[in-house]
C-alpha cells in the first residue's frame, strides 16, 4: 500500500507496491518507468535522418522504406520482448512463491516455485558490469538434500531496485517464511 521514492541502480525512479492479501499472502510489485515518448521520437528521428542522408547520396528509395520497416519492427520487438513494465513477487505461506514479469505490450511471463523447493530468500551481492549491486534472490534446495543449495533464482532482474527497496521486501517475505 506504500509508495515511497525508490530508485533503481542507475538512479531512475521506480515504485514499490506492497499488497497484503491476507495474513500469510503478500504481493510486491516493482514498476519501472514507462517508455518515454521523447526518447522514442529522438531514436526515430536519428534513424530516419541517417536513412535520408544515405538516400541523398545513393538515390535509392529502398533505403528509406527499409529504415521505416526497421524502426517499426524494432519498436515492436522492444516493447514486446525487452521493455518490462512491472515485476511482481507473490508469496503465499506454506504454498510457494510466484514470480511474474509484465512487458510493455501486455505480455506476461510467470514462474511458480513450490515451498518444498525453497530454502530461503536472501539479499546477495553481485558484480554487474562495472559495479557491485545488491539483489534479492531465492535459494532453491533439492527436497532430498535439505542442507545444500541447488540453485539461485534472482528476483526483480529488469527493474534492479536498490538496497532500501530490497530490504523492505526482504523483511516482509521473512515474516511469512518464518511462520510456515
Amino acid at each position, binding site marked *: 500500500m506504500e509508495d515511497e521514492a525508490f530508485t533503481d*541502480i*542507475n*538512479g531512475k525512479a521506480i515504485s514499490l507496491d506492497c499488497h497484503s492479501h491476507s495474513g500469510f499472502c503478500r504481493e510486491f510489485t516493482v514498476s519501472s518507468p514507462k517508455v518515454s515518448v521523447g526518447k522514442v521520437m529522438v531514436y526515430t528521428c536519428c534513424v530516419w535522418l541517417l536513412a535520408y542522408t544515405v538516400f541523398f547520396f545513393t538515390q535509392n528509395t529502398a533505403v528509406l522504406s527499409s529504415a521505416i520497416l526497421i524502426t517499426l519492427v524494432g519498436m515492436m520487438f522492444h516493447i514486446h520482448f525487452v521493455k518490462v513494465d512491472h515485476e511482481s513477487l507473490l508469496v503465499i505461506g506454506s504454498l510457494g512463491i510466484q514470480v511474474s514479469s509484465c512487458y510493455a505490450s501486455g505480455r506476461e511471463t510467470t514462474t511458480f516455485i513450490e515451498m518444498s523447493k525453497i530454502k530461503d530468500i536472501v539479499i546477495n551481492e553481485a558484480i554487474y558490469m562495472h*559495479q557491485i549491486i545488491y539483489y534479492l534472490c531465492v535459494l532453491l534446495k533439492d527436497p532430498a538434500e535439505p542442507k545444500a543449495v541447488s540453485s539461485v533464482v534472482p528476483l526483480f532482474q529488469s527493474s534492479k531496485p536498490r*538496497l532500501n527497496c530490497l*530490504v523492505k521486501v526482504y*523483511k516482509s517475505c*521473512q515474516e511469512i517464511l*518464518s511462520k510456515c
Partner: protein
Amino acid sequence: MAHDALFHAKTMGLNTVFTDHSLFGFADVSSVLTNKLLTVTLCDTNHTVCVSYTSKENTVLRATLNPEIVSVIPNAVDPTDFTPDPSQRQDDRITIVVISRLVYRKGIDLLGGIIPELCLKHPDLHFLIGGEGPKRIVLEEVREKYQLHDRVRLLGALEHKDVRGVLVQGHIFLNTSLTEAFCMAIVEGASCGLQVVSTRVGGIPEVLPEDLITLCEPTVRSLCAGLETVIARQRSGSVPSPYSIHACVQNLYTWRNVAERTEKVYDRVSREEVLPLHRRLRRLRSHCGPVAGSIFAFSAVLDFLFLLLLQWLVPDRVMDVAVDATGPHGLWRQEQSGEAGGTKQAAESDIS
C-alpha cells in the same frame, strides 16, 4: 594492476596498504625502472606489509621507504589440510619430494646436478618431483642420461588439493630456490612431517627453527652434503616422528595469528589521514626525483580530472554502500555463538 589500483584509491581518498610477497633485484635496467615505479607508488601509501624480515629489508631499500611503516606478517599454512601420514611412505626406500615450478629461479639446475650424484651413491634413493615449467627438459635429460627412469618420477602440474597426497609419500622435502622471500612449500612439507632441506637464501632462515630444517649453500656440493646428513639420520632412525614435527609447525604459523596481525594493521591505517591532492603532488615531486615525480604528479592530476568526469557520469549517490558485515549492533561477530536464530532476528531490525 596493484599499482594501478593503489593510484586510483589515493585519488579517491581511500587509505591504502600494500603487501609485498617477493624479493627483487637491483642490478639490471628493468629492476631499476621497476624499483622507481615502486618508489612512486609507495611514497604516499599509508602502510606496507612484507612476509619476512629479509623481504622488509629488500622492499625498504628498493622503494626508499620509512621502515616504521613496514610491518612483517608471515604467511601461514592450514594444519588440518597438511597432516602427516607415514603409512603412505614406502619404507624400503628413501623418497625425496620436490614440489615447485620448474623455472630457473627455483634452482632446478641445482636439482639436475644433485640427482645423478646422490642416486649413484644411494641405490635405494628415489625422487618425486611435482610441478611444471620450462626447466622440465633439464630434469628429463638427466633422467635419460643416467637411466634413472624408475627412480625419478616427474608428476607434472599438480592441483592444490593433490599436493598433500604427494607430500606424504616422501621422507625428505627438498627446496633448491635461488631466491625466496618466504617459502610456503617448506612449511607445508614440515607440516606433513617431512625432513626439510633447503638453500640458505632470502627469508628461508627465518621460517623454520634449526631442528626442523637443514640449510645449505646454493651449490650442488653443499646441497649433496646436507642431503647426505639427513639421509644418514633417516637410516639410523634418529629423526623425530612426523607427528611431533607436525605438532611443532601447527603452533608456529596459524592463519588466525596472521588475521589478527593484519587486522591490527588495518585498524591503525583506517585512523590515518589520506593526503589531499596538493600535498600528494608536492610529496611526489620531492620524494621521487625530478623527472619521475613530475611525470606522476601530472598523471595524478589527470586521474583526478578523470574521477570528476566519472562522478558526473555515474553519481556517488546512485551506488549502495557496503553493509556492515558484523550485523546490527555487532550481532554476527565471531565471539557470538548463536547463528541461525540470531541472524533471523537481526534481519528484522533496521539494517540501514
